[in-house]
């Protein structure tokens, strides 16, 4: 295939910041895309992959950005030299883009049809009637049911998956030669992710366009892309055919990325031992129902059954994984079990009935049931030092400790999560995501709780960091005999750390059982769908 490349990026460097004080974010990146090729740009957050892609369309804030060197040639034309006006002719028509977040990429005040027609009216000068017909055709093509009706729907009337489909339709409206997809499925549930990916694959073949896919998910790359570029800290470290790179990675960073898929950390043997012990946490028929109120008198007109009659048992030292897609009620269940959310049903913790207790009576018990949240950027008070954050619970639950003893415990806790005493006086904003999550874990561990609720503790982290944090959690569990309630949407993570798994859908438990058994032999069809979607058992 010696035809000229569709897109050629040569030695591209990009720097951000005010002039005179710029930091380089992309350095000397070169790659090419052939017509009809599917290229994946892979890297962790901050590796410069999105910046590279946005440079192609020159979508950066021009006052803050400098293209220090390099060339971007599209169809033989130099894009970096083009004026903003000329670029406008290329954006959407020649090169289209879809973004990560379909919720915010559509304008909420216009019906989707109007937004879809816009590029057609603009670039192809169609009359409104033909444009509308084209849009209906497009919507049909991207798998929207009843496109004649949906064309007048507003974005909020569509689900996340449908919105992403609309975004794809919008991108394809002018039959671009190159489609840039920036993490197109990250914000979606796994089953939807799979559908969207299949759709992209299908459309790519039909339209014969090239796709530049930006992602951090190697599994997705394996099943979608032809070739791969791996980026690390602004530099392109490895590129080649997907099969070649993933089979025999040359660069240590690629190897590290590949090795960061979580591997099993728990064994089945432990399960039998757990059976002997009295359960630490028992929930019977746990419910959490939110009324829907409407009208002037706020009468209850309906209800949302976020958690609908869940029975749950957790034994000391055990990890129970709770999986489900967004809106399945898994976080609400966790919060209700810890009485951070009002609900119904009997909840016994450590032999005490806690669901009827007042907040005040519950407070001393809080020491034994702790939470680690998903987003380490918002779960630490920004105006407290690490010492204050970790020491707060100690001061509350161990008031008899002197200042010296308290500090000793804080240091010990930091040591346990792999941080050192230099960090005592720093503030959360000075740490990376992984370090922050370690601080959040240290805050929990110093209290020596019996139960920890982990609410997507690794979802906000890069995969290499994710693996470290999972290993740390498992390590701490073994050392302190804590029980974990592990909430996540990521089945790979669950397989790695959970002894038992509970699958939730629409507030109900559809299946629960030992991790091994559930993964190899799912009984409920929904579990099966979930497994297929997240582990790519079938696709391509």
């Amino acid at each position, binding site marked *: 295939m010696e035809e000229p490349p569709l897109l050629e990026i040569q030695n591209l460097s990009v720097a951000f910041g005010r002039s005179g004080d710029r930091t380089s974010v992309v350095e000397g990146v070169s790659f090419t895309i052939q017509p009809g090729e599917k290229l994946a740009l892979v890297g962790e957050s901050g590796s410069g992959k999105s910046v590279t892609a946005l440079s192609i369309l020159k979508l950066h804030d021009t006052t803050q950005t400098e293209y220090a060197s390099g060339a971007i040639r599209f169809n033989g034309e130099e894009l970096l030299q083009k004026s903003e006006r000329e670029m406008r002719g290329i954006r959407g028509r020649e090169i289209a883009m879809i973004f990560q977040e379909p919720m915010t990429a559509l304008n909420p005040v216009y019906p989707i049809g109007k937004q879809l027609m816009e590029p057609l009216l603009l670039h192809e000068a169609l009359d409104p009637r033909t444009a509308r017909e084209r849009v209906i055709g497009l919507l049909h093509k991207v798998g929207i049911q009843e496109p004649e009706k949906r064309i007048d729907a507003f974005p909020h009337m569509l689900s996340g998956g449908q919105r992403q489909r609309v975004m794809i339709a919008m991108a394809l409206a002018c039959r671009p030669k190159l489609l840039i997809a920036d993490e197109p499925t990250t914000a979606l549930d796994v089953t939807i992710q799979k559908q969207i990916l299949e759709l992209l694959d299908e459309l790519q073949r039909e339209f014969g366009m090239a796709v530049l896919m930006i992602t951090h998910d190697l599994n997705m790359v394996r099943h979608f892309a032809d070739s791969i570029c791996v980026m690390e800290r602004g530099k392109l470290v490895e590129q080649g055919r997907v099969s070649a790179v993933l089979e025999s990675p040359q660069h240590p960073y690629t190897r590290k990325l590949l090795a960061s898929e979580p591997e099993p950390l728990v064994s089945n043997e432990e399960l039998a031992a757990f059976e002997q012990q009295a359960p630490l946490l028992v929930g019977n028929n746990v419910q959490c129902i939110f009324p829907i109120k409407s009208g002037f008198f706020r009468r209850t007109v309906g209800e949302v059954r976020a958690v609908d009659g869940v029975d749950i048992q957790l034994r000391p030292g055990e990890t129970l994984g709770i999986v489900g897609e967004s809106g399945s009620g898994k976080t609400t269940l966790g919060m209700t079990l810890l009485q951070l959310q009002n609900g119904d049903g009997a909840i016994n913790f450590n032999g005490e009935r806690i669901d009827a207790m007042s907040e005040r009576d519950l407070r001393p018990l809080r020491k034994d049931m702790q939470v680690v*949240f998903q987003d380490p950027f918002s779960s630490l008070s920004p105006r407290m030092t690490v010492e204050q954050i970790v020491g707060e619970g100690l001061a509350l639950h161990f008031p008899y400790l002197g200042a010296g003893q308290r500090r000793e415990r804080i240091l010990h806790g930091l040591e346990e999560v792999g941080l050192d005493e*230099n960090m005592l006086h720093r*503030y959360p904003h000075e740490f990376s995501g992984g370090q922050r999550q370690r601080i959040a874990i240290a805050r929990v561990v110093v*209290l020596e709780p019996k139960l920890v609720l982990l609410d997507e503790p690794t979802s906000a982290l890069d995969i290499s960091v994710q693996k470290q944090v999972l290993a740390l959690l498992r390590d701490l569990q073994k050392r302190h005999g804590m029980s974990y309630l592990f909430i996540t949407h990521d089945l790979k993570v669950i397989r790695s750390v959970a002894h038992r798994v509970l699958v939730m859908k629409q507030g109900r438990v559809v299946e629960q059982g030992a991790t091994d058994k559930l993964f190899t032999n799912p009984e409920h069809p929904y579990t099966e769908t979930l497994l297929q979607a997240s582990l790519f058992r079938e696709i391509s």
Partner: protein
Amino acid sequence: MSRHKSTSMGAAARAWHRFKSNRRGYISLWILAILFGISLFAEVISNDKPLIVSYQGELYFPLLKNYPETHFGGDFVTETDYLDPFIREQLMTGENWALYPLNPYNFNTINYFARSPNPAAPSDQNFFGTDDRGRDVLARLIYGFRISVIFAFAVTAMIVVLGMMIGAIQGYFGGRIDLVGQRISEIWSSMPKLYLLIILASIFHPSLGLLILLLTVFGWMGMADYVRAEFLKGRNMDYVLSARALGLSNGAIMRRHIMPNAMTPVITFLPFELSGAILALTSLDFLGLGVPPSTPSIGELLAQGKENLDAWWLSLSAFLVLVGLLMLLSFIGEALREAMDTRKG
């Protein structure tokens, strides 16, 4: 155990750093601090009693103790009038000496020995002239400045405490408490403040304490609104939920986790609250509804200036002090606002 403070700066330290980088605001803060510091010693700077008197080999401290005129060779057993030319002469002759303050008038001293009729124009006797009752304008300005600033600090402090408490409770608990609180504060803020003050001033004996109380009672709503909004935002943060999970009481969560992050609007508005309070006091005094008659006040001086249009020194000096004070506060406020803007690095 070695402790590394390292390079990390707290949010407050970084804000202070940003504040300092605004030269105008930083210098204004120093000027205001120095002026206020000096005015705290007004009794030593501007007083009708000498600081120390040495009379016939004995030391006297008239600032601290009252001495009858007979001590210094006078005829009456009343308190000495140290500005009386006869007494002055007594204190200055021979071995005797007296150390007078820089400006030898108290705010209430009536200069009975002025050379021209009151209000007297600036002269070497009275640097800024006298008002229509013969009192030294400079002395009244120094004392008036002090009272204005102290008054503003007191009102602002009370508004901040009250507003933050009410706003915090509204925002943190939300729901019905918030709803009721908002309606009360709306009704309260639509009360005609000035008329109420006039009515209350006529019922009660006007005093500085009463004014502070009234302005606080009618002034907390704005502050409560800002704090409420910050608390509404803050209570949904994950770190608040994790504090709850930690078992902290509501009070501790509000105080330790939300309050520090809700301080930005409070601190930003402090200088404006201060200048608002100063203006309020001045205008009340101007209308004659403010502090009791003999108290030194900038507003009262302005009112005198209006009554005596030909005595330009009255209105001009009061005007300059007021403008200077408000300008300093505005500059400080501007710098504070920039300091609270975390985007500025």
